[in-house]
């Protein structure tokens, strides 16, 4: 038994539990995939599934890492650097999460659901972002003034 396990380990690269756990995961996913295969929009769903990974790993991550690298080249000391990073991240996070409203994408559906005109949200997002940067700048100025 122990020898069999050792052989599996050498060939497969991990213990039997590893294999079982992953096979169970693939069985569940495979079942869902088969079930969805009949849907008219199955390919679209798959594209969105894989597209979400590509959008994060090969677009969002490289973009924010590059922006941060550029920022670190301009601002060297951690304190002022983080007083730019924090409001920038907060602003970017809000944009990412509330993007449909900020870009006014759901307007037609909102209008027919509620009978009311959607409020344009781009201005609100810009105002919030400006507030974050302003608050961060004030906090930085206060901390420098205190240290003196």
């Amino acid at each position, binding site marked *: 038994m*122990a020898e069999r*396990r*050792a052989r599996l*380990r*050498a*060939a*497969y*690269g*991990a*213990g*039997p*539990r*590893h*294999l079982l*756990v992953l096979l*169970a*995961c*693939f069985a569940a*996913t495979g*079942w*869902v995939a088969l079930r*969805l295969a009949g*849907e008219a*929009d199955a390919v*679209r*769903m798959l594209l*969105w*599934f894989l597209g*979400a*990974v590509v959008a*994060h*790993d090969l677009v969002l*991550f490289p973009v924010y890492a590059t922006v941060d690298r550029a920022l670190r080249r301009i601002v060297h000391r*951690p304190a002022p650097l*983080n007083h730019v990073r*924090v409001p920038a*991240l*907060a602003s970017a*996070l*809000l944009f*990412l*999460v*509330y*993007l*449909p*409203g*900020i870009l006014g*994408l*759901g307007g037609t559906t*909102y209008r*027919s*659901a*509620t*009978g*009311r005109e959607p*409020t344009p*949200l781009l201005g*609100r*997002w810009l105002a*919030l972002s400006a507030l974050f940067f302003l608050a961060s700048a004030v906090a930085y100025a206060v901390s420098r003034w205190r240290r003196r």
Partner: protein
Amino acid sequence: MPGDGTGKPAGEREYGFPAPLWRALARHRPPGAGAATRGWRSPVRGPWLTAVHGALLLVALPLVFLTGLLDHLAYGPRFGQAFPPDVGWLRLPQVDWPTRPSWLFRVTQGLHVTLGIMLVPVVLAKLWSVIPKLFDWPPARSVAQVLERLSLLLLVGGILFEIATGLLNIQYAYLFGFDFYTAHYFGAWVFIAALVAHVSLKLPRMLSALRSRRPADEARTGTAATRPEPPDPDGLVAPEPGPATVSRRGAVALVGGGALLLGALTVGQSLDGPLRRTALLLPRGQDPGSGPNGFPVNRTAAAAGISDADTGAGWRLTLRGGGREVTVDRAALHAMAQHTARLPIACVEGWSTRQTWTGVRLRDLAALVGVPDPASAHVRSLERAGLFNQAVLQANQVLDGDSLLALRVNGADLSVDHGYPARVIVPALPGVHCTKWVAAIDFRTDG
């Protein structure tokens, strides 16, 4: 054999079968692979930071998953009115959705949406913390690693898919063009299967990483004193770390702050009064109008194709049960005993509101046609098309003392957009099943 059966993949230098293949793969480094491996600079990236975010998600994500399932259950899958209607083996237990507490659906759905949104920065931070693994070369040294990577594709794809479809749905931007319910329901199962596998394989690693540093020490360590973690077998710690620009406590605080910011800008859509406006960037934080009918509308009469003639003086409600049929007009309903209840109405999109409804108890209407103890009730709207132009209510939902065919809200007649001449309101029932512009109710004795 030490470590056997723990599920840990082979060590860095070991190659599985067929070894020549994996070795050849390792030798053929694409241009830039070396730079990518050595290029990671952040000294806070490491097993401890990954484990902290992993532990947070391990507690919170199952809560989002469970509240999502509860919402599916609240739709009444046994009447075929939960979406997607046919889920095969993933069918949930056939239980009656309770009517008490009346805020039950308001809380499960509000929690699902609000917590789901709050976890976005935690998910992003977790992905940031492990992203060097994505650019590792060779990408695998054994079949085990290939399979594990594939399961990670399902894990990462699953959570990002759920976040993206959920966020677009609650903001009415149906860019994806497929059925939201089907995609979000099955996507959740793909994600949870991959999560169970990931946790089964990585839990010991998470626990040992959490134990490797004391939170109290981290809470005291500022940026200047922050040092990288010791090199780890998973290769998360940067081989050539740069100077710290943020402490570990700072990184965790940043992620937590992001989550709180999102929570603060989302929770308003589940609150009434001036606090609703705090959902500054969400459609349901916007002004719903004023007066007794000034609360959010989910579907206007115009969108539902309801005309003035439909709801005018000629409107009649048809009640059926036990072979009897009774037709009543609005005056006859007003002449019956009126009951007032303060009940929330909550949408699957995560927003809710509590209003004061007045009308006839559903159980009184059931008694009127001689079925005082119905097994269910089928409510039909005047609306001709539309996914929610009818709903089946369970026995407990018909018989609850606060379940109403509402004629008035906050002391005024219902507006046509809120369902005039009459709408259903049942405690803890999803908003779309509180049928508006009711045309007929069929009280059934056979379930």
